[in-house]
């Protein structure tokens, strides 16, 4: 087993695009690290460089203690699970899993042992004689995993292996991946664009955007203490709400329907005045206008859409505070805020509604760079 290390790695394509920009990341031996980010952020390119399927423009990649930039992919002792599984259609499941061993001229008996061991681990034994075209998506995924583990490689690379599965299967396979990692303990570098997957699978996550790592750390750390607005918005579902605000003296002022809403920040004050981006997680909203005596941020708005999910209710509401333009879904600007309330709440579209937020739950970001403004508390209350 080995660790994976990126040291100032940059990837520049022939047309000039910089897919990965000065990436330095440590994946210690035995850990499960997830690279996550929107499509085009460079995570897959980074993964492929570790595999050797892409050349490194600058910097070094280390597997264990060895610099592997120039080592042929076949010699790196890593296994990769592709997004589309890349199973050889003309071979049976057995042959697919035996392929890595056959290529290394392993004795037939040992090949048989190892393939059957992997098949047992993944519940593939009844399928060994079938061909990929006769398998379901989930079964194919398991075969791809089987092919990866049969070699007992030093590290796993996974390129969005779950994205081609339907939602239910995905949840199930997530669990299986987690269990496999527990049992086998192989160093894994995992790439996905799905932040839920990232949050649940990894012991550490690295969020990437435009080739640069925005922040890396345990999932909870990224959730509670995002280093910039991008990470804050990327992690968490439903995503964090954003609005423009002004820091005046030591208070935050936000536009309101009749008059601005205002809250004193006290220790939360970042030490400067001016425009800021305010971030509020959906679960931070409490129903009701809030006691004016307690210093809370009260927002009055109008209900847009209500989603009753049984155990919780999502209330989408409009508010006169200005939402930054860069907050978008699918290219369209977002026009509502979302609050997550426990249980079943009866609200109707068009209804006037009020929420209040504890200033401790507010996230403040620089209006230009998006960087988080100190100090951030750890929000134990959440």
């Amino acid at each position, binding site marked *: 087993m080995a660790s994976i290390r990126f040291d100032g790695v940059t990837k520049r394509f022939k047309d000039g695009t910089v897919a990965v920009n000065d990436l330095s990341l440590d994946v210690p031996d035995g850990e499960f690290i997830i690279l996550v980010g929107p499509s085009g952020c460079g995570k897959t390119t980074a993964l492929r460089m570790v595999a050797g399927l892409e050349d490194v423009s600058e910097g070094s990649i280390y597997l264990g203690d060895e610099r592997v930039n*120039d*080592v042929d992919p076949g010699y790196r*002792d890593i296994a990769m699970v592709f997004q589309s599984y890349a199973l050889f259609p003309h071979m049976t499941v057995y042959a697919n899993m035996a392929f890595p061993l056959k290529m290394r001229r392993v004795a037939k008996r040992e090949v048989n042992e*190892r393939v059957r061991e992997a098949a047992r*681990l993944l519940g593939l034994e009844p399928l060994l004689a079938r061909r990929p075209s006769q398998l379901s998506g989930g079964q194919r995924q398991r075969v791809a995993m089987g092919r990866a583990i049969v*070699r007992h490689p030093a590290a796993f690379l996974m390129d969005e292996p779950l994205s081609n599965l339907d939602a239910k299967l995905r949840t199930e396979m997530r669990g299986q991946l987690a*269990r496999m990692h527990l049992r086998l303990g192989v160093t894994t570098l995992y790439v996905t664009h799905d932040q839920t997957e990232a949050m649940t699978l990894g012991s550490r996550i690295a969020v990437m955007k435009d080739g640069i790592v925005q922040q890396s750390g345990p999932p909870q750390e990224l959730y509670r203490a995002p280093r910039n607005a991008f990470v804050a918005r990327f992690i968490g579902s439903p995503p964090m709400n954003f609005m423009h605000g002004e820091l005046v003296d030591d208070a935050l002022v936000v536009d309101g329907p009749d008059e601005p809403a205002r809250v004193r920040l006290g220790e939360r004050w970042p030490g400067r005045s001016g425009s800021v981006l305010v971030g509020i997680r959906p679960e931070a909203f409490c129903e009701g206008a809030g006691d004016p005596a307690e210093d809370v941020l009260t927002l009055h708005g109008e209900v847009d859409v209500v989603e009753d999910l049984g155990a919780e209710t999502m209330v989408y509401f409009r508010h006169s505070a200005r939402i930054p333009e860069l907050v978008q879904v699918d290219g369209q600007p977002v026009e509502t805020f979302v609050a997550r309330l426990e249980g079943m709440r009866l609200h109707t579209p068009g209804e006037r509604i009020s929420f209040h937020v504890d200033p401790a739950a507010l996230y403040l970001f620089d209006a230009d760079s998006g960087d988080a403004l100190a100090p951030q508390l750890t929000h134990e209350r959440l």
Partner: protein
Amino acid sequence: MADGEAVTYAPGRAETRMERPHRAAPPFVRELARYAILIVASAIALYPVLWLVAAAMKTQPEYIQNPTGLPHSINFTNFQTVLGNHVLLRYVLNSAIVVGCAVPIVTVTSAMAGYSLARLWGKAGGTAILFLFLFSEFVPIGIVAIPLLLTMQQLGIESGKVRLICVYSVLMMGFAVLVFRAFFRSVPEELREAARLDGCSEFGVFWRIMVPLARSPMTLIAVISFIALWNELFLAVVLLNDATDRTLPLGLTELRGTYSTDWPTLAAALLLSAVPTLVLYAVFQNKITSQLSRSTTRD
């Protein structure tokens, strides 16, 4: 996953026989071999054509002296001689008429047939008809040339041009129907269903929706058919009885007698006859080679 089972996982090299040299066989050697092969093959492919061009630009005595080298100068006199040959021009006209009629016939009838096979016919009828067309791909019409001639005589079709138009239409039909069928199968069924729900008839669906969509394969079939039929020779030999009906390829072979001692002029004639097809090829080559192929950049 089988829970509770002991797993002996001992990561490490699975075998001991692999050394660790760095990049195997430098890619530059591979690239060199690749281009060497391609250059040799291209030279072999191209040389005869270039030789023909060179020959066409030489005079007869020049050619006898120097058959393989470059011409003295770029000399178009042979081309002019050829263009002044009225007999040849009549052949060109014949070819143009015959091919000009056959190509639209093939394109349209095959498109209709291909569409109906793709979407309208069921398993029983569809497979039988398909089999017929497939059969014609594997027993090409050229093989039954003699019986074809006799059929023509039996049917009383005397006109050489009509004979060729009919036969040429059938020559490309098998291939065209298969291409169209494959294409129309790739058009989602929902388009047709939506149109039918809106009250469109089956014919309407074909003319208004499918044909506009099929512009690409139709152009392709038209171009390929044109090239193949313009160059077609054997069936013309068999089926034509009147010298005035001769198509161009046939006419050119007859010219062998007239220009038997004058290869450069004959070469010029051959080149000129190839012009329409070469032009079409140059314009449509990407489409042609990518119908037979997907984009190479996928590698």
